[in-house]
């Protein structure tokens, strides 16, 4: 089943178009990474999915049903969300916050206990939320979002502001949700590295447009490996391979986009040039580099 289906979705503020998505699809059981630099339109898109923002044009279907004023209450019943950082009542304890969610979503107490246990906040429930660290607040936010064990979970930059250990924890936590509880997840991030290890599909958005959508494997296929040649004389190697646009790197001379034939040609040229060829290494472009190449922007 398609959990989220977006067609020709447009959001304009005045004359400025902030979102213009031809198509986006999140299938059941996926962890869909919604990626793009800051200001690319990720939050606005997610808000439109949740009916927090009205689209200027286009269609959003959730689980086969159109999201509109008549269906929103029904559909929101099946969706948990965390948008633009965690929401909480800071003057109350973690437990009171969870009790509010329990009452609002009308879920049994054991759900709340389970959610707290999943995010690992069991020992902090009697503390006021204003005394929580940012990581704890994020985890509380996730606990609230999953408390009803919804079919669909929408998480907007849930690792924002977390330290590396916190990020890792959050990733591990998110990864377990589809497998163990059948929750489909759409998660946004402006840092590909952060979600790379958990997502099954990705969509990349830049300046409001989708520039890639597909599996992670497909995305990786776009990356042409580079070859690094380590020789006895880098300067001379550089000159010899001038025609192939070489790059000086600490570990040797780097050439990109070579076919197998070209690699053999280069090796022959080095040896014929009287140099010793110590090593030929394949360097795969990191996803991060690809991401930057696609969006034309370094993250942040």
């Amino acid at each position: 089943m398609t959990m989220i289906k977006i067609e020709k979705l447009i959001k304009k503020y005045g004359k400025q178009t902030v979102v213009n998505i031809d198509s986006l699809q999140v299938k059941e059981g996926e962890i869909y990474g919604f990626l793009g630099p800051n200001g690319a339109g990720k939050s606005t898109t997610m808000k439109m999915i949740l009916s927090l923002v009205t689209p200027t044009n286009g269609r959003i279907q959730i689980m086969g049903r159109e999201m509109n004023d008549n269906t929103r209450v029904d559909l929101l019943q099946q969706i948990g969300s965390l948008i633009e950082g965690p929401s909480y009542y800071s003057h109350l304890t973690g437990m009171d916050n969870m009790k509010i969610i329990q009452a609002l979503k009308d879920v049994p107490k054991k759900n709340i206990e389970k959610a707290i246990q999943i995010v690992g906040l069991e020992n902090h429930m009697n503390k006021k939320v204003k005394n929580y660290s940012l990581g704890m607040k994020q985890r509380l936010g996730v606990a609230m979002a999953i408390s009803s064990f919804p079919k669909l979970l929408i998480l907007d930059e849930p690792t924002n502001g977390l330290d590396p250990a916190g990020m890792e924890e959050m990733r591990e936590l998110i990864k377990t949700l589809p497998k163990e509880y059948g929750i489909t997840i759409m998660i946004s991030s402006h840092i590909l590295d952060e979600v790379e290890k958990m997502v099954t599909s990705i969509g990349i958005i830049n300046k409001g447009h989708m520039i890639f959508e597909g599996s992670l494997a497909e995305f990786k296929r776009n990356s042409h490996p580079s070859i690094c040649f380590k020789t006895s004389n880098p300067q001379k190697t550089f000159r010899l391979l001038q025609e192939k646009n070489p790059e000086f790197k600490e570990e040797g001379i780097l050439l990109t986009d070579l076919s197998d034939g070209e690699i053999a040609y280069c090796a022959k040229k080095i040896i014929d040039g009287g140099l010793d060829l110590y090593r030929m290494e394949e360097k795969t472009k990191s996803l991060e580099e690809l991401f930057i190449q696609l969006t034309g922007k370094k993250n942040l």
Partner: protein
Amino acid sequence: MKNLIKTEFIKLKKANVWTSVAVIPMISILFGSGNYYMNREILQNQWYSLWTQVSLFYGFFFYAIILAITASYSWRMEHKDNNWNRILALPYTYSQLIISKFISISIVSLFIQSIFVVFYYITGKFIFQFQTGFPYEVFLWAGISWIISIAICTMQSFISMKIKYFSIPVGIALFLCFVGIGFYIFNEIGLGENLAYFSPNSLLIVGMSSNKSEILKASEYIKMIVSTILFTIFFTLLSIRSIKKMRKC
């Protein structure tokens, strides 16, 4: 809906708004009692005279101001810490969200009113030691003004929903109190008949029988209730419309 109202009270739990809720009615009684004590020679009607004094400040200002504080506090919790995003992503209609908010504020209002009446009783019975019986009209005045206060709760809830700062809606409430007093006075001196029905704050003064101790005609009470209902509906619709508009940006 029941759950929504219940959560409003969990949110208000441990909130510092309860201090004002308890203290401000007491201050009103204290002011009024002071006035009564100084003017005992003129004010000879025991319970009724005391009522004219305690209800004066309370009906003119204090009651509406505490409601404004409560509404501001109640909405500030939502404005703070990104709660709007979560509230609007909850499976409830906008009218349910809005109505639960002002019902909860109206329940606080009932609580405020009860404190006021209890303190009025304690003051009359134990401090001034009135010999006459407790005037049951007080329940009518307190009851009708509580009903009127629902219009003020809805109005203040709307204002505080729109304005994210805590004190500005309270300032507006104070201004509206003056408008209410103005309308009330015009109404009293016959410069604008029925003018009082156009301001919930004026109605509160009339309903509270502030500075007076008389029972009005049934038709006037009916008019007050009709006016309250209209104000309540108006501000409810305005609030819902305003949420819908908010989604456009």
